[in-house]
C-alpha cells in the first residue's frame, strides 16, 4: 500500500489528458442543443413533490419497559415529547458504536503503515477507540434507564448513518492510507462534537441534568479527540507537502449567523 497520497501519476480524469479529443467533444456539446427546455431545478421539483407525499424514514419504537411506559406517559402529560430525546440518544449510541469500528480500522492501518512526525500514535488511537466504546456504553445505559430499547435503530440514528456512509468506506478500503483514514475520522469527530453539544443542550432543556453532567464528560473527551485527529492529519499533510508548520488557521471573526 502507498503511504503517500498526492503523487504525480497517470490520472486520466481531466480534459488535459487528451486536449484534441476534449476540444472535439466540447465543440460537439456546444453545437448540439438540449432535446428539452428547462434547467436543473426540475429535478428539485420532483423531489419536492415526493417530499410532500413522504411518510419519513420510520419511527421511534414504543418504550420497552413498564417503567418506560409510565415515564413516557408522565412526560407527555407535562407537554413534552420524550421520543425526541430517545431518538437523539439512539443516534449518539449508533454513532459511537460505528466510531469504535472506525478506530479499529485506523489502528490496523497504523500497524501496517506506521505513522509520521506529529502523526497518530498507537496509544492515541487506542485511547480514542476505548473512549468511543465507553461513550456507546454510556448512552446505552441512559436509554435503558429511560425505559427505551437500546438495540433499536431510531430515525435519527438512520439519518446519521446515511450522512456518514462514506466513513467506513474510507477506513475499510485498503487503497486508502492512514492519512486518508484520518480525513474520515476528522469528519466523524467534527460531527460527534456537535452531536454531543446538542444532546447536552437537549438533556438540560428536558430536565435530565444528571445525564447532561455525564454527557459533558463525554463531550470533553470528544473535544480532545477532535484536536488530536486534526493535529495528526495536519502534520501529515504539511510533512508530505514539505511545507513549514504554522499556527492553526481560524476564522477572522467570531461566528455570527448570517441573516
Amino acid at each position, binding site marked *: 500500500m502507498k503511504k503517500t497520497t498526492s503523487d504525480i501519476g497517470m490520472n486520466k*480524469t481531466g*480534459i488535459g489528458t*487528451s486536449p484534441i*479529443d476534449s476540444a472535439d467533444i466540447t465543440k460537439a*456539446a456546444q453545437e448540439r442543443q*438540449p432535446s*428539452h427546455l428547462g434547467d*436543473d431545478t426540475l*429535478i428539485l421539483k420532483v423531489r419536492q413533490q415526493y417530499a410532500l407525499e413522504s411518510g419519513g424514514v420510520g419511527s421511534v419504537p414504543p418504550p420497552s419497559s413498564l417503567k418506560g411506559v409510565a415515564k413516557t406517559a408522565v412526560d407527555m402529560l407535562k407537554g413534552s415529547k420524550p421520543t425526541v430525546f430517545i431518538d437523539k440518544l439512539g443516534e449518539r449510541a449508533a454513532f459511537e458504536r460505528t466510531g469504535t469500528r472506525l478506530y479499529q480500522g485506523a489502528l490496523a492501518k497504523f500497524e501496517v503503515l506506521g505513522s509520521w512526525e506529529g502523526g497518530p500514535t498507537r496509544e492515541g488511537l487506542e485511547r480514542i477507540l476505548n473512549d468511543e466504546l465507553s461513550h456507546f456504553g454510556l448512552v446505552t445505559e441512559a436509554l435503558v434507564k429511560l425505559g427505551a430499547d437500546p438495540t433499536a435503530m431510531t430515525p435519527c440514528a438512520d439519518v446519521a448513518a446515511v450522512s456518514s456512509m462514506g466513513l467506513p468506506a474510507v477506513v475499510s*478500503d485498503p487503497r486508502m492510507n492512514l492519512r486518508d483514514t484520518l480525513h474520515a475520522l476528522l469528519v466523524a469527530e467534527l460531527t460527534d462534537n456537535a452531536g454531543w453539544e446538542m444532546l447536552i443542550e437537549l438533556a438540560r432543556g428536558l430536565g435530565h441534568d444528571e445525564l447532561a453532567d455525564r454527557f459533558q464528560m463525554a463531550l470533553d473527551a470528544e473535544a480532545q479527540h477532535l484536536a488530536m485527529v486534526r493535529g495528526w492529519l495536519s502534520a501529515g499533510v504539511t510533512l508530505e507537502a514539505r511545507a513549514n508548520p504554522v499556527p492553526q488557521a481560524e476564522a477572522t471573526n467570531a461566528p455570527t449567523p448570517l441573516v
Partner: protein
Amino acid sequence: MALDIFQEKGVPLDRQVFTWKDLVRRPYSKLDDDAFTRVCVIYMNGIMADALRTKHAIARMNRGLREQLAIVRRIEQFEQTLINWLNPADQTPLETTLGFEQVAIEVTASVALREPDPYLAQTYRFGLLEDFDHLYRYGALYDRLEGKDPNNITQSYTDIIPGRPTSVEHRYPVDDLRRPYDKRTAHPLTKIHAMSITAAENQTHDYYMTVGPFFPDPAARQLYAEIAAIEEQHTSMYESLLDPDESILEKLVLHEAMQVYNFYSCLAYEKNPRIKEIWQRFTDYELGQLHHVIQLFQAAEGRDAREILPATLPDPIGFKEHREFVRKTLNQEEDLASNGPDYVRMSELPRDHRSFVYRDQLNSEGSPSETVAAGYQWTPGTELAARAQRMGSVLAGKKVH
C-alpha cells in the same frame, strides 16, 4: 495474428482453479486507468453473466446436460467474480452506470461497423443511438445530483450529447422484436456479435434493476426505472436476432466461442499488465471450455464443429472511440422507429400507432429523462463551472463572500 481456435486447446477444465484471494484482487484505478480498461471489465462481466444465465436456462429445460453445464458454469461463476470485483469501491453505482453506457456505445459501434449482415448492422445502429442518449441523461444526473463531471469517467472518448431522446424510445413490445439471422447462412461473426450484444444489454438491464433503488433522489429512481425499461426492450430486441432453431449444443458451442473472442479482444486492447494477464488467463480457460463443449456437441449431434465455427477468430473488437461514426449515424438515423421488425421514419407511422399510444401512456405523468436533462449541455468541469465563470473572477475580485 488471428487465433486458431481449433489448434489452440487452452487450459483443461480440471486446471481452471481459483482461491478467494485470487478472486478478490486489487481493482483498477478509477482515476489512473484508461476508460477502456473499465469498459472491458464491465463488458466482460456482462459476457460472463450471460454464460451463467444461458446455462441456467438450459439446465432448467434439459435433463441430460445438467452435469456438464454445472461443471462449466461453476468455473464461469468464478471468472465473472474475478472480473466484476475489479471494479473499485470508490466508483459509485452512477459512475459505473456511465461506464455501462460507454460500453453500450463504443462496443456496439465497433460491432455495427463490422457486422456483415446489413439488417443486423441496422439494428445495432438503432440501439446505439438510444444508449448514446442514456449516457447524456445519466451524465446530466451525475452533474446535477452530485456536482461531478461525467467526462471524468468517459475521459473525452465519447460525446455527451442527446441521441434519440429516451422519452421516445418506449415502444409496444412487439415493435422491439427483430428477424433472426439464419443459422445455416449467417456468417459466424454475425452469430458472435448478436450473442455478445445481447449479453451486454441484458447485464446492463440487470445492473440498473439492482442499483436503481439505491438512489435516494426520486428523479434518479425514476430515471433508472425508465432506462432499465429500455434495456429490457434492447435485451428483447437483440436476443430476437438469435436463430431460435439452433440446437442447444450448437448454442453452447457458439456461446463459448463468443466468450473466447471477447476475452481475446480485451487481451488485444489492454495495456495495464495486471489486467492483461487476466484476459490472457481467461482466453486460455475459455479455449479449454470451448473444446470441452465441442466434444459434447460432436458426440451428441455427430457433426463437426467446423460446420458452425470459424477456423480463426475475426479481428478483435475495437475498444476505442467511434465519435465520427456515432455522429454520422445520429445525423442520418435519429428519427428512425420500428414497426414490428421493420425500420421506418418516425413520421411515417400514424399518430395512433400502438408504440405511440404505449409511450404516451408511460410519459403521461412526466418524463424522467426529460426532467433530469432539461436544458443540459455538457461542459468541461460541470455546468456549475460555466455558471461560476459567469460570476467573474473571485480570486481577483474585491471580496470573497
